[in-house]
Every structure is written in structure tokens, then in C-alpha cells.
């Protein structure tokens, strides 16, 4: 139940992001939508590794193989990568937005360009 709720919150954010990307014309808004979608996907990825009552995957003194009940650490590692990739893309996209403004004097996607 918890896992499903976590996954649903992630997916709802993805849907909001897609809706924003599709309907908005302002580039900054589109990029915000893209970032929302990315956050949502990241939540979804981590939710897929969540087990009810699981502990943080750090080995401490109380750790024994028989009582081991951790959440899955692999999705966490994937999401670390994904967050960093998201920052790189956003930085590049914002630079492109600055260039776009220089060329077109506005930052909206309209029908007339490319």
C-alpha cells in the first residue's frame, strides 16, 4: 500500500509535467515542466525499491543476515545518476534559452520558428 502511494505521487507529478510541457509556450515553463516530470520519475524509481518497514541500506552494528530488512539500494544509485543528469540538461537548456532570447527577442515557442 505504501509503495503504491509513493509510486502514485511520483506518477501524478509526471502527468502534471507532461501536461505542462504540452500546453505551455514559454520555454522557462516548459523546462519547469520537464524538471517536474524528472522529479516524478525519480520518485517513481525510488518507490519501486521501497519495501514496507524497510530500513536505510547502511550496515550498522545491529545488522544480521537473518533480521535483514532493507529497502532496495539499487534504485537509489540510479536516481543519484538521474538527478545529476537532470541538472546538466537544465543548465544547458537554460543557456540555450538565453541564446534563443538573443535571436528571437522573446522566449515563447511560436509557430514561426523551425
Amino acid at each position: 500500500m505504501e509503495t503504491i502511494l509513493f509510486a502514485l505521487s511520483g506518477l501524478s507529478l509526471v502527468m502534471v509535467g507532461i501536461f505542462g510541457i504540452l500546453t505551455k509556450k514559454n520555454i522557462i515553463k516548459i523546462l519547469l515542466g520537464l524538471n517536474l516530470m524528472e522529479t516524478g520519475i525519480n520518485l517513481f524509481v525510488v518507490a519501486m525499491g521501497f519495501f514496507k518497514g524497510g530500513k536505510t541500506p547502511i550496515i550498522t552494528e545491529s545488522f544480521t543476515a537473518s533480521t535483514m530488512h532493507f529497502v532496495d539500494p539499487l534504485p537509489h544509485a540510479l536516481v543519484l545518476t538521474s538527478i545529476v543528469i537532470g541538472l546538466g540538461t537544465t543548465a544547458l537548456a537554460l543557456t540555450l534559452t538565453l541564446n534563443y532570447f538573443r535571436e528571437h527577442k522573446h522566449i515563447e515557442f511560436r509557430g514561426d520558428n523551425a
Partner: protein
Amino acid sequence: MIYWIAAVGIFLFLGGITVIFQKSIKNAVITFGIVSITSSLMFAMMKAYDVAITEASIGAVLTTALFFWTIKRLEEEGYNEKK
């Protein structure tokens, strides 16, 4: 626990909708920062503390700051939101 998750999830969803339907870009960026920090809380609720730290420092702080500086530079170069 379930109610907490639902509350944070609904907050995230409403925050996302606010980001999209916000008229002013600056307010949208601030709201995005709040959504990002809240998602970091949700990562912590999923026991993903590594991800929570990274999302807080990279996703919330740096991304929001980059958006802000871009808007500032756009305004320096003559961008006007109202137009």
C-alpha cells in the same frame, strides 16, 4: 504513515499544478523549489537518504538558482514578462 504519505503526495501534486498554472515565471520557479524540497522529504520517507541529500543540494538549491539567474539575465537583456 499512510496518511502522511498521502498528504505529502497531494502537496506535491498541488505544487506541481501551481508551477504549471502560475502566471508569473518567478513565482513558478519558487514554487518549483518548494516542490523539489518536498520531494526530497518524500525521498527521506522512502529511506533514501542519499537521494534526499542529493535532491536537496542539487535539485532544489542549484537548479532553482540557475533558473533564477537565467531570468535575471533575461531581464538584464530586456525581457519583460508582461509583454
